[in-house]
């Protein structure tokens, strides 16, 4: 079948300029995972239910499975791969590692990006605010206890 060439979308990805072809209906999660090979962003549901694909767009947590790549034109996107600057874990990543905020780890990238978004707008959140910020992210393994502890610790160390 004849294929129209897909338009090129321009945005910043983890601090670098990025130009990538994506059709109008292409979702950001597909572009990240399939076109750009950034597979740290996960997909756990058929759209908008589990939070595993949470990324930051202009510093705010967004679901990459509900965002069309075309909408990202000119915007700043951050994924889990961008957090460990220079190979050093961020404070949140370190806390998730040391406090065992992970089990299978599949929800972890989305969980950390949701928490990152919170800490940027509220560096010292209450536990209630942390739970609110993570309420769209499902975890089937940990029971969330150590996840909340990890975010609290990262906030304290911030």
């Amino acid at each position: 079948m004849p294929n129209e060439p897909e338009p090129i979308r321009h945005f910043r990805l983890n601090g670098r300029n990025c130009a990538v072809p994506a059709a109008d209906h292409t979702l950001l999660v597909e572009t990240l995972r399939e076109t750009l090979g950034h597979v740290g962003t996960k997909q756990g549901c058929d759209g908008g239910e589990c939070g595993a694909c949470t990324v930051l767009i202009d510093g705010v947590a967004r679901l990459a499975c509900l965002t069309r790549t075309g909408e990202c034109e000119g915007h700043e996107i951050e994924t889990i791969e961008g957090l460990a600057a220079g190979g050093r874990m961020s404070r949140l990543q370190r806390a998730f590692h040391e406090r065992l905020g992970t089990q299978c780890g599949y929800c972890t990238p989305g969980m950390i990006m949701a928490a990152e978004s919170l800490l940027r707008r509220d560096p010292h959140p209450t536990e209630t605010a942390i739970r609110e910020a993570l309420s769209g992210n499902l975890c089937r393994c940990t029971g969330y206890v150590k996840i909340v502890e990890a975010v609290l610790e990262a906030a304290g160390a911030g």
Partner: protein
Amino acid sequence: MTATRTEIFSAGIVEAGLGTVTREIPAGEPPPWPPNAELTWIGKDVPRLNGRDKVTGATRYTVDVRLPGMLHARFLRCPLPSAELRKLDTAAATALDGARAVIALARPGDRLRYAGQPVAAVAALSPGVAAEALAAIDAEFRPLPFVVDMDEARAPDAPLVYDEASAPKGNPSGFPAAPGLPVVGNVRGPAVVRRGDPAQGFAAADIVVEGEYRTQVQTHSCLEPHAIVADWRADGLTVYMSTQFTSGVRQELAALFGLPLNRVRVVVDGMGGGFGSKSQLGVYGRTAVELSRLAGLPVRLALDRHEEQIDAGNRPGTFQRMRLGAKRDGTLTALAIESHGTAGVALGAGIGFFAERIYTCPNFETLQHDVFVNAGPGCAMRGPGNTPGAYGLEQAIDTLSERLGLDPLALRDRIDPSKARREERRIGAERIGWSRRHKPGADPGAVKRGMGVAQSLWMSNVQTNVACEVRVLRDGSVEALSSVQDIGTGIGTVMAQVVAEVLGLRPGDITVRIGDTEFPPGGPSYGSRTTASITPPLRTAATRVLAELGREAARMLNAAPEELEAREGRIRVKSDPGRSLAFRDAAALLRTDRISAVESRADDYPGFRRRMPDAAMAHEDLGGVQFAEVAVDTETGAIRVERVVAVHDCGRPINRLLLESQVQGGVLMGVSYALLERRVMDRRTGLMVNADLEHYKLAGVHDTPEIEVVILENLQGNSATDAYGIAEPANIATAPAIANAVYNAIGVRLTSLPMTPDVVLAALGKTGRS
């Protein structure tokens, strides 16, 4: 006969006082370990060694695997709950540009038995083309009568899911294993277990308690879907699969495709949860391999969430009738259970093992039935049988204690022979503040609080077809190898701790290579058996490889090998620690680039209680006691679990941080089971109406109670590590502990799951529903 020697082991619950036990052990086994307090790495909080990869997004899961030339596969599934396949024409799909392989999984004339049953599969250059190819398949289905509700399926005139000839005979999840039972209508069974004389036992009882309990169908809902990338090549098959059992899948593939084992390799790196549902190859696994064979290219098949919900396994729903007879002092005289459960088109809905084993009762009977309905096949899920079984029995015990005027803990002290659980009840009662517990419904006001307790029982399973390898390389680096997979619990970290303890190194010094059948066979990650299976032979292998290194070091240190010990990164003379060599320098003395030891083991020291092919049961009283505190809003019907105290034992704990995390997860899965999760089937269409994660409710961070975890150190001198599992016990007691707490709060007993607000209000007589 292998040579043996006698050793004296510390034995007992460390928290309650230790004794000793003398064991005759195989001569090649390492000496007894002291309690954890005297060990360096065992029992300590070691963070996950691969944790950095998990938090930076570097871990590669099966869904992330991309191979050159990889095709994308999808299923055509039956849209109806019961149908005859009238026509299946795949010619147009096969001819489609970009389609590379199409296979039929059913033939015209076949009976299809649930909505979602695979009918055909395609592999194509992209997911989009695969979808087009599916649409090009010409399939016709003739609707047939169906039944999706278990009670309706038991009616004499219910549409039949199977006839006697076609009904499955075996038992996919193994609980209870009872082949060859009669099938009448849609009901198979009863599977009968009897001891003593139940009729006489009830006649001798002072009090008889009866109860009926109902549990829902729960789906596993692993965050990573079932996924496989199959790469069939002329010289062999490599499969990347999100699996709980790499070496088991390899065996299945070899048998199914007529390949020798050495031409089949199964690999899993990151693994996004299983909970029982990723234990076998499955139709999806088989299909991907077949498509790859046909296309001559790698094939990726990953289910979407809708497929996960309708056709990736589930925990069977149950209906349980319990009858308990007791003397005034609480002594049980008889226990009888009749149960019906449904695993959809599959078997394995029994619940009786828990009641059969947990309490002392001379007269016992279970009659267990599997009921077929037109729904996706169930399979083992975290504590299969025992989790729904505990929901019924632990409530019946609670009712009995009230009728006897006994505290529920005092009654259990009388009827539960487990020493570990006795200690767990004592500790848990203190932590939760059991003395604050009031009479049922005594809390004034609209929001009523209550407290409840329930117990866990699971088997200490061990895989006997397990081996481990430990290597020391000439630069002093160390590797531990096994095909065992880390499904999230952290077995790799546990392995590093064991090897580090033996070699006197740090866990971070050990490179753990797992999740690949190129390494010695590891066991499955199910049945709470991984740690018990892998750590004893691993410790033995590390001990042996150290002995070989010690022979080199001994020459250099002018000592006998048996005078040496490995501590703090050095090989040193025990009586004169100043005479020592760095581990690295000792390794440099090796003649070859690496030395290696591979070990397995045939038995626990006291002997396994029961043996199965490739596996065994060490004992059957892996314990755990959980206490729950709830608040029930009698105006809205909402139950909030405020606090859970979970006290567990798993032999010798190896990593408390990992154990705590697993118990917290087990508790939350129990909260979710108790209050939220339910597969809803539409009786009119036969379809699952909540096949997603929006309407199928999983507990979220807002639903998490405060969870306090206590892990006992219960030494038994059973193996080189004495370590057992915890995944399943952590889940079994939660829902009944919550149910008993709800009763204590409102004074009305809820007997069906999930305990949603409408159920609470109905029980309180506040709605028109009954």
